């Protein structure tokens, strides 16, 4: 649906790599262009009209994000460069401050690199221990397995709400309820879920949430760090410098601004933030429930067709999201992706930044189709037709 809103889809292109990034609707492109052509000033310089306008638009975008994720306070919404930066800030700026040797961090083997490496680094720096919650036979996280994995040393559970290869949805709300009873913090990597369904941080009761703008029709280079206000107050800024300080005279006399500005050092990504605000307005105009429902139906349609192809090995026949990972028997995934590219079908081949997942699935690399609301049954039909004939794949892979 809404294909007409996307200039990229006016080209002869079938874009099925939405887990990597999404296409941009005209309204987002226009909003960014408007900033660069009509009021291209810096933020926090309200001495003249166009800068005042920047502050207004920038803060309006923050309010749009707050409302979208149902955060309580605007101060809980920090603009970052994306999920990766947000997760690094959470790991280093918050947990780096108070975790002690032998404290335990629980993740899983199906996390994206951005929810693994910051914890690995913390482990090397502080002597904390990174442990994995076992996945069930479908590579899902169950509350039961979370319960079995915690010890008196567990301090953090950090999970993707939807994973980027299997596409399973985790029971975050139930995990938070259980974790909080045991004084454990919960970090949610929302990169693959926030663009595709309603997010309510208060209802979920997550302590921190990270997500990216470009995976939800927004610009690249902008993302969000959400944290409960009392926790963000404790967060050490990773970057210090312009914009975030109140005054300084000497190394021991540095005074910082309040949240969220304290965590946004330097000139912010103004166009990015404003563009993200517009993208969210656009998604809300369609309706997040409608988006989720449409994607689920489209996935079911795709699976019903793909499952009939005997030389396909689908990793996640069951899944809660629009992600389908599979391999063509005996053909390297990248060669299949190259073949599909000849027909202007964009899919991703690889380990999708989930490099420890192979221990769990036994599959090193795969092709990933990741859907969004602008994909259609006709896109799937085209894909299926090209995958149906294995000889044609082998013929076309060079």
């Amino acid at each position: 649906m809404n294909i007409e809103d996307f200039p990229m889809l006016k080209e002869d292109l079938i874009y099925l790599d939405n887990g990597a990034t999404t296409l941009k609707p005209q309204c987002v492109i226009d909003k960014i262009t408007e900033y660069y052509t009509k009021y291209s000033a810096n933020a926090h310089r309200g001495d003249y009209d166009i800068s005042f306008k920047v502050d207004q638009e920038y803060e309006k975008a923050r309010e749009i994000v707050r409302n979208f994720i149902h955060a309580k306070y605007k101060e809980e919404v920090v603009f970052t460069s994306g999920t990766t930066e947000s997760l690094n800030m959470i790991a280093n700026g918050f947990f780096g401050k108070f975790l002690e040797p032998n404290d335990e961090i629980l993740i899983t083997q199906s996390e994206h690199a951005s929810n693994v490496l910051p914890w690995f680094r913390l482990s090397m720096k502080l002597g904390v221990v990174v442990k994995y919650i076992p996945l069930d036979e479908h590579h899902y996280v169950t509350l039961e397995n979370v319960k079995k994995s915690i010890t008196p040393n567990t301090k953090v559970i950090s999970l993707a709400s939807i994973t980027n290869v299997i596409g399973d949805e985790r029971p975050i709300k139930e995990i938070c309820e259980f974790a909080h009873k045991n004084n454990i913090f919960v970090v949610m990597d929302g990169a693959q879920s926030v663009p595709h369904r309603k997010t309510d941080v208060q209802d979920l009761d997550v302590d921190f949430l990270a997500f990216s703008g470009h995976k939800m029709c927004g610009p690249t280079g902008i993302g969000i760090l959400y944290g409960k206000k009392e926790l963000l107050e404790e967060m050490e800024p990773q970057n210090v410098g312009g914009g975030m300080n109140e005054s300084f005279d000497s190394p021991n006399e540095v005074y910082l601004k309040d949240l969220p500005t304290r965590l946004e050092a330097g000139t912010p990504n103004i166009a990015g933030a404003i563009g993200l605000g517009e993208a969210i307005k656009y998604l809300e105009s369609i309706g997040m429930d409608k988006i989720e429902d449409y994607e689920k139906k489209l996935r079911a349609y795709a699976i019903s067709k793909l499952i009939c192809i005997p030389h396909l090995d689908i990793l996640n026949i069951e899944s809660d999201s629009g992600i389908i990972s599979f391999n063509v028997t005996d053909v390297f995934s990248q060669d299949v992706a190259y073949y599909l590219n000849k027909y202007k079908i964009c899919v991703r081949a690889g380990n999708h930044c989930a490099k420890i997942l192979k221990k769990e699935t036994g599959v090193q690399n795969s092709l990933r189709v990741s859907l969004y609301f602008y994909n259609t049954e006709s896109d799937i039909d085209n894909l299926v037709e090209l995958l149906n004939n294995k000889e044609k794949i082998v013929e076309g892979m060079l």
Partner: protein
Amino acid sequence: MESREVIMNHYTSSPYKKSKNLDKSYQKVTTQSDSCIDHLDIFVKIEEDKIVDACFEGEACAIATSSCSILLDNCINKDLNEVKDFIKNFENMIYEYPYNEEELHETAVFKEIVKQGNRKSCAYLPYKGLKKILDKKL
């Protein structure tokens, strides 16, 4: 033999795929693409400035895998300086600088690759790896 057949033969049944445990006399280099998932480990045994044996393993596409096999085929029993020149000539072909057609040998099957930007790096990947070993030696 047509280029396609040469590439597919080296891809599906390369004689240089690592098949046994190697002793410490082999040097290993890992070469990984920045833009895709190709990953190759190349093992080389050098004696008196000569490559006397080599093999590879890893997960990579048809182009990167066959390119590695063909490269090793052309390097075994060659003097390191000769190998260096061979690599340079291939590099020139891939990046569209003047090169010696005759000295390409079987690697000429990748001549069409230069027209496919996204596969250039696949064909060049094993060369990037072997170069790392030579740079240390020469």
